[in-house]
């Protein structure tokens, strides 16, 4: 058996992917132990994993089921604000609020998903722009509507300090859970249903796939991890305001990372997140114009859609190190 065939066989097994995730997480987890003062490395690791969580979570609904959402900042913001409010007003420990934040985000996903997921492809995509915008407006105005100080409107929430090393570990754990979930979904019946929806919704429906239910569940699972990511952000940044947490720019980033990295693949979202964090960090400090990275992403997006629909993951497979079957969204038959 050649090396390449072995690699392909290995890629078929989800356990190999899970093992790779665990090894990666173990390496990142020891950063603060090896060098407790490596603040810059920890910051970079946080951003890569944090963006990775968001990108992989988006990939479940956007990549697997093919329903592009331009409104994922809504779920991120919901999670962040749940943690923020519970921490600020009820003095809960932010990490303990994470399950609550994830559930709130999931509940919100079911609420907005039930009507919008009746829409197909492009219609759903446009409606999600509205979801993002509407959620931002709600977050800004909820204090006025309810008469209680919750989000503190446009001024934002300033939160207490929290140990960044604990957040580092928490981020690693959430990232591992996100990746393992996406791997498990891809291998299972649920994922099969999502890919069927992606390929032909009518055919899937005819074959007995409960398309409406699967999509709502996929959106909710996606929102769970976005909500958890919101918690992590609140605990680390100690400041929340609606115009950044619910911004369209974050929604754009959440779309760009998995699409540029490789839509529908396991590792594509992480590739996209690494690229995004790197470009954000390096180019922004290099040219001092925050719009140069956006220009780069726009060009990248156009190039990828035109020439390599599987993004960076597709390019990696073209190098021939690993078979293209390793990369393809499912089964390798497309």
């Amino acid at each position: 058996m050649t090396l390449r065939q072995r690699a392909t066989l290995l890629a078929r097994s989800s356990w190999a992917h899970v093992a790779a995730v665990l090894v990666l997480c173990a390496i990142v987890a020891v950063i603060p132990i090896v060098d407790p003062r490596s603040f810059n490395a920890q910051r970079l690791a946080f951003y890569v994993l944090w963006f990775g969580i968001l990108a992989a979570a988006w990939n479940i609904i956007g990549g697997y089921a093919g329903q592009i959402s331009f409104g994922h900042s809504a779920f991120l913001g919901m999670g962040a604000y749940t943690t923020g409010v519970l921490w600020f007003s009820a003095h809960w420990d932010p990490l303990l609020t994470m399950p609550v934040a994830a559930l709130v985000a999931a509940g919100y996903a079911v609420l907005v998903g039930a009507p919008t997921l009746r829409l197909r492809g492009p219609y759903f995509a446009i409606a999600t722009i509205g979801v993002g915008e509407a959620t931002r407006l709600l977050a800004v105005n909820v204090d006025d509507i309810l008469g209680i100080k919750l989000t503190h409107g446009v001024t934002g929430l300033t939160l207490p300090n929290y140990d960044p090393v604990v957040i580092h570990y928490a981020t690693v754990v959430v990232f591992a859970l996100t990746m393992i979930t996406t791997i498990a979904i891809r291998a299972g019946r649920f994922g099969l249903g999502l890919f069927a929806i992606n390929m032909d919704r009518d055919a899937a429906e005819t074959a007995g796939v409960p398309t409406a239910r699967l999509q709502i569940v996929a959106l909710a699972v996606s929102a769970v991890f976005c909500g958890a990511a919101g918690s992590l952000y609140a605990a680390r940044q100690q400041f929340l305001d609606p115009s950044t947490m619910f911004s369209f720019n974050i929604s754009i980033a959440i779309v760009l990372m998995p699409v540029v990295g490789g839509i529908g693949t396991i590792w594509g979202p992480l590739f996209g997140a690494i690229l995004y964090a790197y470009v954000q960090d390096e180019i922004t400090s290099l040219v001092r114009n925050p719009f140069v990275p956006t220009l780069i992403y726009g060009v990248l997006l156009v190039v990828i859609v035109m020439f390599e629909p599987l993004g960076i993951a597709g390019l990696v497979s073209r190098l021939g190190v690993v078979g293209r079957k390793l990369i393809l969204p499912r089964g390798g038959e497309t």
Partner: protein
Amino acid sequence: MRLIEALVSALMVAGLYASASYGLALIYGVMKIINLANAGTMMLGAFTTWVLWQSFGLDPIASVIIVAPLGFALGALIEVLLVRRVSGQPPIVSLLLLFGVWLVMESAAYIIFGGDTRGVVPAYVRTTFDVGGVIVSMTRLAVFIAGVVILVGLELFLRRSFLGRAIRALAQDRDACALVGIDTKRVGMLAFGLGTSLAATAGALLTLVFSFDPDFGRVLQLKSFTIIVLGGLESIVGVALASFLLALAENLTVTLSKPALENLVSFVVLVVVLVVMPGGLAALLRRRRVA
């Protein structure tokens, strides 16, 4: 009295919304593509108008003569270089592609012009009229009239000219068009160019009413989409009607509730329409005619 006031002001805003949405409806009708770059084109139209006004003192309405052909050229270029090559692929592909184009347009504008809010202020900006007891500014009236003129012109073009009929035929059945000898690629390019040109024109006109920055058009994008869905996706008259309804709904929300919730209206209308009557107003009218 309050009602008349709401109606007149909704009518004025409707002209503005309609001109921003014609291009989107035309491109959707012919190519079944949602042109996410519509907002970007509108913004570029606005900035071109601003540059013309700054350098030569050209009036925004007069600058349409320059902006419209430029928009057409840009649209035709985008169609030939990009959109055409992904035709036949799932609609998500063209959506992401045009989303990329929009990002490029927006960030390029930020890099060139910076993030400052600009405005075009011709001498007549403060002129107002009294329409049935309601004060209407000259600029709003001008944009409204332009919206009506474009509507009439576009309808005439689509119904009377050969090319216009070819565009409508293409919207109905692409294969049948090819069979009777219509150059579908060329007509597709012309339709995309025309749609983009309409968006650029809208951008030029909107400078009269709004100040703008490179992000200009994003909120209008959602509204435009709501409008074309409400209007039945392919009907130009539907667009005009839907613009009026949306403007009225927004106006009433702002009067009865909070101004900040204005942008929520379009989202709610969008979801309700898509779920309750996916065919929009056009389907509703058609059903009545049949009954």
